[in-house]
C-alpha cells in the first residue's frame, strides 16, 4: 500500500519522499478516523476552529478510555476549501479504510466528496457545510448542522414574530451560504408578515460597505437581516451602527464567535443571531464543551464552527463506540439512529440524514454572546426528507 503510493509519486513527479508514510489500519494501534478542513486558503480561520473542535472531541473520548481500549487518532487533511480537492481527499480516506470520515469544511469540498464516500460505503458526517444537496448524495452521508434554508426560515420567524419587525432590508454575502440563507428567509417571510424592501449583495473579501450602508440608511428599514462571517459581518455591523442606523440587526451562525464582537466593538451590542450553540445553556454537554475548549486552547474562544465540528466528531465516535469499527454498514446504521446530547443540542437525523434540532438565538450583551430565545417549531425547521 505505502510502497505503491510512493512509487506512483516517484513515477509521476520524479520526487522521492521517504518521509511520507501513512500507516495502514493496524489491529492494535490507534483507531484512525478521517477529517478534512480548509487549513490554508481563504477559509483558514474556520478550518482552524474546525480542527480544534474535532481534536477536542477526540481528546475527550481518549480521556474516557478510547474505543474498546484503543486510542483514537484523527488523520487531518487540508482541502483548502476547494471542490476539486474533495475527490482525491475522499479517495485517499477510502483507500485507508477508515471506519468513518468527518468533514470540517465548506460546501465545495464536502459536496464533491459526499457521493464518493457514499459510493464506497464509508459513513461521512458534514459538520457545518450548508449545500442542500450534500445529504442527497446517498444514505451514508449525514449533516449535524442546519441547512442554510432552514436557518433562513428561522431568521424570518425571529424577525417577524419574535421581534415584530415587518419591513426588512436583506444583505446577502455572495456565496452558497448567503444564497441559501436568503432563499430560506424570503420563502418564510410572508408567513410572518415580513416584507423585503431591498436585497443587497457583498463579496466574501469585502470589508468596506460604505455605499451599501448609505443605501440601507436611505431605505429606512425596521430591521436588517444580514448574512456573513465574523470577518465581514464585524466591519459591516460596525459601519451600519457608525452611520447612525439603530434598528435591530439579525445575523446567523457565520457571526458566531468572540472575534465578531472584538471587531465590531460596541456596535455589536444587541445584534441577534440564529445559531446552534447556546452560551447560557445549562446542559452539561454545552457547559463542558465551552469550558474544556477554552482550557485546551488558551486565547481562543469557542465559535459555532468548533462546536459543530465537535458535535459531528462526537456523533462519529459514539457510533464507533456502539458497533465497533469492523462493519461500516453497521456504523452507518448506528449514526442514523443517533440520539445524542451534544454541545449544539440533542442530535437526531431524519430519513435524509439531516439533523433535527432547535435553533438557538443569541444576542450580544456586554461584549458576550448570551441567550436570547429558542425557535423550536418542528414544522418550520423541518429539513427536507428527500
Amino acid at each position: 500500500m505505502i510502497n505503491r503510493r510512493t512509487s506512483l509519486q516517484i513515477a509521476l513527479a520524479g520526487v522521492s519522499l521517504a518521509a511520507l508514510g501513512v500507516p495502514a489500519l493496524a489491529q492494535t494501534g490507534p483507531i484512525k478516523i478521517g477529517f478534512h478542513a480548509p487549513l490554508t486558503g481563504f477559509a483558514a480561520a474556520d478550518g482552524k476552529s474546525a480542527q480544534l473542535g474535532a481534536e477536542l472531541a477526540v481528546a475527550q473520548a481518549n480521556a474516557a478510555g478510547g474505543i474498546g481500549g484503543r486510542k483514537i487518532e484523527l488523520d487531518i487533511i487540508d482541502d483548502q476549501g476547494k471542490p476539486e480537492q474533495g475527490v482525491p481527499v475522499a479517495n485517499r480516506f477510502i483507500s485507508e479504510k477508515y471506519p468513518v470520515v468527518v468533514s470540517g469544511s465548506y460546501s465545495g469540498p464536502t459536496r464533491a466528496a459526499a457521493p464518493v464516500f457514499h459510493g464506497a460505503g464509508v459513513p461521512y458526517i458534514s459538520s457545518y457545510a450548508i449545500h442542500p444537496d450534500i445529504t442527497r448524495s446517498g444514505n451514508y452521508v449525514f449533516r449535524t448542522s442546519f441547512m442554510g434554508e432552514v436557518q433562513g426560515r428561522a431568521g424570518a420567524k425571529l424577525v417577524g414574530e419574535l421581534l415584530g419587525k415587518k419591513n426588512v432590508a436583506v444583505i446577502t454575502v455572495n456565496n452558497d451560504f448567503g444564497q441559501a440563507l436568503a432563499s430560506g428567509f424570503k420563502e418564510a417571510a410572508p408567513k410572518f408578515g415580513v416584507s423585503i424592501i431591498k436585497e443587497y449583495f457583498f463579496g466574501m473579501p469585502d470589508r468596506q460597505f460604505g455605499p451599501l450602508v448609505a443605501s440601507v440608511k436611505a431605505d429606512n428599514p425596521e430591521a436588517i437581516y444580514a448574512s456573513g462571517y465574523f470577518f465581514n459581518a464585524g466591519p459591516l455591523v460596525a459601519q451600519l451602527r457608525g452611520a447612525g442606523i439603530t434598528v435591530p440587526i439579525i445575523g446567523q451562525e457565520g457571526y458566531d464567535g468572540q472575534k465578531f464582537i472584538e471587531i465590531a466593538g460596541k456596535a455589536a451590542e444587541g445584534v441577534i443571531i440564529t445559531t446552534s450553540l447556546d452560551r447560557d445553556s445549562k446542559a452539561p454537554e454545552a457547559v463542558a464543551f465551552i469550558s474544556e475548549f477554552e482550557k485546551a486552547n488558551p486565547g481562543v474562544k469557542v465559535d459555532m464552527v468548533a462546536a459543530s465540528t465537535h458535535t459531528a466528531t462526537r456523533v462519529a465516535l459514539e457510533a464507533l463506540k456502539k458497533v465497533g469499527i469492523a462493519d461500516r454498514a453497521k456504523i452507518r446504521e448506528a449514526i442514523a439512529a443517533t440520539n445524542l446530547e451534544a454541545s449544539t443540542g440533542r442530535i437526531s437525523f431524519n430519513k435524509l440524514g439531516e439533523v433535527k434540532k432547535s435553533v438557538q438565538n443569541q444576542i450580544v450583551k456586554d461584549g458576550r454572546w448570551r441567550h436570547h430565545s429558542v425557535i423550536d417549531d418542528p414544522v418550520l425547521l423541518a429539513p427536507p426528507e428527500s
Partner: protein
Amino acid sequence: MGSYELSLVTLAAIYVMLALSLNLITGFCGQISLGHAAFFGAGAYAAALLTKSGWPLAPALVSGAVLAAAFGFVVGLASLRVRHDFLAITTMGVGFLFIGFVRKQQGLGGELGLSGIPDHGLGPWGLAALTVTLAAATAALSLHIRRVWAGQAFAAIADDEDTARALGIDVMRYKLTAFVLGTALAGLAGGLFAHFTRFIIPDAFGFTVSISILAMVIIGGIGSTWGVLAGAVILTLMPELFRFINDYKLLLYGGLLLLVMRFAPGGLAGGIAALTARLRGAT
C-alpha cells in the same frame, strides 16, 4: 492503482491539458493570459448542463470545447487591440467578469453551483484513461504545432509582434488561431473536470486558478511542451506529496514559485537545458 491514485492521475492529466492549452497562447504566441480559468469554467458549465439534460458525455465535452473556443475567439479579438501588460490585465478582467456573472445566474445554479452532474459511466480507470489520452493528444498537438510552419510564425509573434508583421506574417490570423485552439482545449479540460468532481461552483474557476495554470506554464518553462507538462504534473501533485505538512503547503508553493523564478527563470525546461549545456562544456 487504487481510486486515490487514479483520481490524482485524472486531476494531473486535466491540469496538463490546461497548462498546455495556455502554453499555446502564452508560450507559443506570447500573449500572457491571467484569465484562463474562465475558459476552463465555460467548458465545465456547458458540458455539465448538457449531460444533466440527458446528453451523452462525448458530445457534451465537445460542445463545452466549442463554447469555450467561441468565447476565446472574442477575447482573441480583444488581444488584437490591447497588448502586453494591458492584455494581461484585460484577460484577468475577463476572468473576474466570468465568475461574477455566473454566480448571479440561477440557471447555472448561482452560488450553489451545479451538483448532481451525472456519473460519466467510465469508472475511475476509464476516466483516468480518457483524460490521460486527451492530455497526451494535447501534448502531441503542441509538439506538432511547434514543428510545422505555424509554430515558427507563432514564435515570431511571441518574440516581437511588429517585426513579425513586417516579415509579412499574418499576425491577426495566428493570434486568433492560438486563442481559439488554446481556449477550446481549456474548455475540453473543463468538461472533464466537471465530470470528475461532479460538482462545480463559480469559485472553482477564479483568479487563483488562472494564476496556478500560468504558474505551471512558467515553472515548467514557457514555450516548452515537455517542460510545461512536467510543471503541471509537479504542481498538481505537490499538495499531495506534502500532505504531511498541511499547514506549510501553500507557503512551500509560494516559495517554489519565488525561488524558481529567482534562480532558474527559464523554468524546469530552461534549467535542464542550462544544466546539460554546462555538463557538455565540462566534458
